[in-house]
């Protein structure tokens, strides 16, 4: 079919222009920025000190003094949500970092080598995938004890095969391309080709997967914290706040509502951002539009 109207691949500025016409991207970008800003601001300022317990002020309903109300120790929920963002972002980000840092080299290496190496790495991947992620995370924290660092490791380990798979699939799609053949004809070895040609071409793929895993990381951290296996007090975390809230749903529903909303909004924002990026950069979706 000759529907191929030869749309040129965009320059950076035209991508930007397109990006800001993409509703999902803009919404995701703004939300993500807001959450980030909230986390950063919390370092310098929060309405109240989140480490200070004021038992006499416990479980107060939202008011002008406490917009989101107070928790069972009289702490300001708004301040805790702000500081909690730090923890969620840190855990999810580092976990994505671990996943990418290990998974992407493995995946590209497997694709470049092929054969036995590929087979073995992918079987190893299967092995990790065969373990229910949450269960393994629980076992990991049971061994090393609960805490933010161990939550990061537990979530990060399960990001590795995800990125390895995506990187491998992406790389396998790049390898048969003629420009790779051209590079081989120019005498480049597989490592050089992987770094110079394959990685830049799967970068957007990885970026999109990265935002998805970031969002999943926030959910996973919340889940682990909810089971009491994530960040420990006095550091507030959204999942922990929900854990504390669940026994007080009748008298202090705001304790559950606000951190829950924070998780929903953050995950929603990241997913929208990922969708937006995929929409803007994926040539296939471009053709569909």
């Amino acid at each position, binding site marked *: 079919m000759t529907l191929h109207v030869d749309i040129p691949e965009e320059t950076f500025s035209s991508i930007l222009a397109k990006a800001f016409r993409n509703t999902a991207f803009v919404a995701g970008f703004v939300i993500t920025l807001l959450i980030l800003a909230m986390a950063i601001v919390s370092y310098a300022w929060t309405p109240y000190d989140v480490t200070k317990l004021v038992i006499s002020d416990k479980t107060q309903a939202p008011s002008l003094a406490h917009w989101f109300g107070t928790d069972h120790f009289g702490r300001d929920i708004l301040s805790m949500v702000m500081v909690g963002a730090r923890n969620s972002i840190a855990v999810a980000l580092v976990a994505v970092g671990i996943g990418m840092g290990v998974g992407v080299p493995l995946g590209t290496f497997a694709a470049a080598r092929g054969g036995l190496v590929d087979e073995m790495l992918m079987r190893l991947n299967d092995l990790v995938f065969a373990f229910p992620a949450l269960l393994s995370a629980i076992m990991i924290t049971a061994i090393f004890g609960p805490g933010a660092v161990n939550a990061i490791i537990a979530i990060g380990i399960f990001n590795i095969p995800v990125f390895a798979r995506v990187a491998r699939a992406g790389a396998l799609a790049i390898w048969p391309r003629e420009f790779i053949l051209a590079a081989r004809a120019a005498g480049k070895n597989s490592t050089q080709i992987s770094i110079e040609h394959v990685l830049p071409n799967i970068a957007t793929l990885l970026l999109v997967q990265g935002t998805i895993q970031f969002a999943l990381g926030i959910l996973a951290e919340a889940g682990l914290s909810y089971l009491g296996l994530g960040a420990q007090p006095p550091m507030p975390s959204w999942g922990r706040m929900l854990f504390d809230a669940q026994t007080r*749903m009748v008298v202090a529903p705001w304790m559950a509502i606000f951190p829950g909303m924070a998780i929903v909004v953050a995950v929603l924002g990241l997913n929208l951002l990922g969708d937006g990026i995929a929409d803007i950069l994926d040539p296939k979706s471009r053709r569909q539009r």
Partner: protein
Amino acid sequence: MRLWKTILAAAVLSLAAGTSAFAARTDLVIGIPLEPPHLDPTAGAAAAIDEVLYANVFEGLTRIGPNGEVLPDLAVSWTISDDGKVYTFKLHTGVKFHDGTDFNADDVKFSLDRARADNSVNAQKGLFAGIDKVEVVDPATVKVTLKNPQGSFLYNMGWGDAVIVAPESADTNKEKPIGTGPFKFQSWAKGSSITLVKSDHYWGTPASLDKAEFRIVPDAAAAVPALLSGDIQAFPFFDPDSVAQVKDDPRFKVVIGSTEGETILSINNKKPPFDKLQVRQAISYALDRKAIIDGASAGLGLPIGSHISPASKDCVDLTGRYPHDVAKAKELLKEAGLESGFKATLKLPPPSYARLGGEIIASQLRDVGIDLEIIPVEWAQWLDQVFTKKDYDLTIVSHTEPNDIDIYSRKDYYFNYDNPAFDKVIADLNLTSDEAKRKELLGQAQKILADDAVVGFLYELPKVGVWDAKLQGLWENAPIQANDLTKVKWSE
């Protein structure tokens, strides 16, 4: 809002069929926090076993009443020899086990001998250590001879570990308990619930309930909605932290009773800098018990100043020994050469009193310059690391055994506390039977512990029961951990 509710209700009306409640019910669902590992009270320490079976399925010669008093049970009456060594029990006749076999003196002898045998797996073998011999006088009479006079013997025979079992069923009680009580065991859905039904051939006053289901609800978070939705009608051991949720609801009755659980901030007395008296005292001054009780126990529970329940007649009120005084605490730390504060860890087992209290204590100690890292641990790890290996700085735990002040004199106990003066008091106490003298010695012991600030004494764990307002006859206090259903009934 109301409209919404109506619409929603109408939309899912079909689901509601069968949930409507009827008057004069004879069934009861009771929530219990822990699942018993098995169902033989004579072969395990877990309190959860007694919570289900004690007085309901199994009975002893004597039993403990709602306020801790000793009452006759399978024994109609007893006589005690003058030297206090020989107890002669007269037994009820016509009693049958649930499997239809007869109960008589042979069963008593079997049960007591089995419990004190060398290969016994009874968790409280100490209860039977004083027994010299058990003799069957006639089918309705048993004579127990003690090695030494023992004031607590009748009380001991009321423990769940001393219930009477039949030789025919003793080995299978773990899975299918057979007793003489007003309820017989029906089924156990592991991980979910244990169901008892009324026994038709009970020797005493039959129970009012036809069926009682003990449902295992491990989390406070799940207990509240279960109660509110009416799925479960009684939680005799409710998490104090959740009481606020139901306190103002007229459908429920909240009963605050007492326990023997001294909740303490345990300190590793040998580990620097906690080996310094000033440091321990500083910690005691830094603690604000009121805030802790308010924050971790919904304001319920009495503050304690030493290791004896305030409800006990032997208690000396030492709560004023270390008032909340941040300045004094800092001063003491300065004396100890730690004016710039220090770091330590606080290991917290799973119960909410520990986890919540830990957060508050960490915050309070931070105010005096002690920076605590909170490490939550499971019971397995707590027993392993803290209790056995003594690898800890601070921890919070409730010591629920009654009259257990002697633990501070035990060698190698996890407090790592060693004070010959205290040991001497305890040794004397063990040789003393005179009430007044005992009270004085106990007073001394309490004072020594307080002066040494061995641990941070926090509060007496309350026994919070929450149940349907129409339910009558459940125990208000918890002299022992049990849910005696013999007198429980629904009003109306």
